[in-house]
């Protein structure tokens, strides 16, 4: 739901455009189950500019900063928040909680005159990134 709303909002800068693909970044620690997400996305996007769009989920492993090792380490799973190298408990999670719409691929209607305004809107949207 939130994905469809969010993408629809950003489509305001591209009147008439249809969405081909929505790319997500989902951390391993985010409470997101891909199958349910795909199913719900299909239902929520019906009748919108997102109808029929592919939902591509890019899963990000958990990355911790380990103090004793003095480096960022990647975890093989989410069953233990301890450093896989030295087994020290890690408190600083650097990656793995993301729930983000990374980008969308759209088909735009070509209209020469509107080019400048859209480019401006695109820049504004791109600057909005979190984290």
């Amino acid at each position, binding site marked *: 739901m939130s994905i469809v709303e969010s993408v629809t909002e950003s489509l305001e800068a*591209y009147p008439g455009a249809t969405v081909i693909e929505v790319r997500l970044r989902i951390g391993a620690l985010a409470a997101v189950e891909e199958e349910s997400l795909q199913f719900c996305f299909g239902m929520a996007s019906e009748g919108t500019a997102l109808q029929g769009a592919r939902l591509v989920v890019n899963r990000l492993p958990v990355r911790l900063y380990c103090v004793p090792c003095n480096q960022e380490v990647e975890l093989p799973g989410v069953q233990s928040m301890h450093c896989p190298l030295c087994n020290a408990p890690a408190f600083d999670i650097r990656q793995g909680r993301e*729930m983000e719409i990374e980008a969308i691929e759209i088909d735009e209607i070509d209209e020469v005159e509107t080019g400048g305004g859209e480019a401006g809107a695109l820049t504004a949207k791109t600057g909005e990134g979190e984290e």
Partner: protein
Amino acid sequence: MTTRIVELRRGILKKNDELAAGLRQRYAVAGALVLNLVSSPGTGKTAFLQRTLRELLARGFKAAALVGDLETDNDARRLAASGAPVRQINTHGICHLDAEMIGRHLDDWQAVNLADLDYLFIENVGNLVCPSSYDLGEKIRVALLSVTEGEDKPLKYPTLFNSADAAVITKMDIAEPCGFDRDAALRNVNQIRPGIRIFETSAKTGAGMEEWLAYLVGERLARAV
């Protein structure tokens, strides 16, 4: 037709996160310590919270609770027996509370003025998945686990336990007949959330409640500016 890629880099729950940030500010200005209680259905959130409210009131604190369920106001009525003001939020099918629901129910809550409260508890909908994604602006997220549920709950639902600030084990009075493996439970919680405070409690006998209340009082003092 031209195909183009538009970078968004936008949080999926951005709207909720923004509303939650507003709530966090609002709680801070009012000086109320806000806790969000999350667990599976049947862990004993309501019994635990009822006892917590009763004991806080007896010590002269002002506390209130918002309680979320899909339907019925049964839990609100049970909690109100503590003497604290309680408001039920019915989500009608939604499996979690979100920041918008909290804000709306605080806005028109005649019985409660946030600025008069020492503590506001939010009892979330019983669910170990979605509530972990929805920030309610709380200072402390409490994950509850009962001795009847199996010691590996934290491993099965790491997201929720990892996002918690404190953990409470409930129904300790029946730990033995349930064959509850205390060491395994503590180890599993610590594996997912190293160093977290864990309270072993029974709302029925009152076991562990002193320690929990001391924690609540301490957190309020520590966070008061």
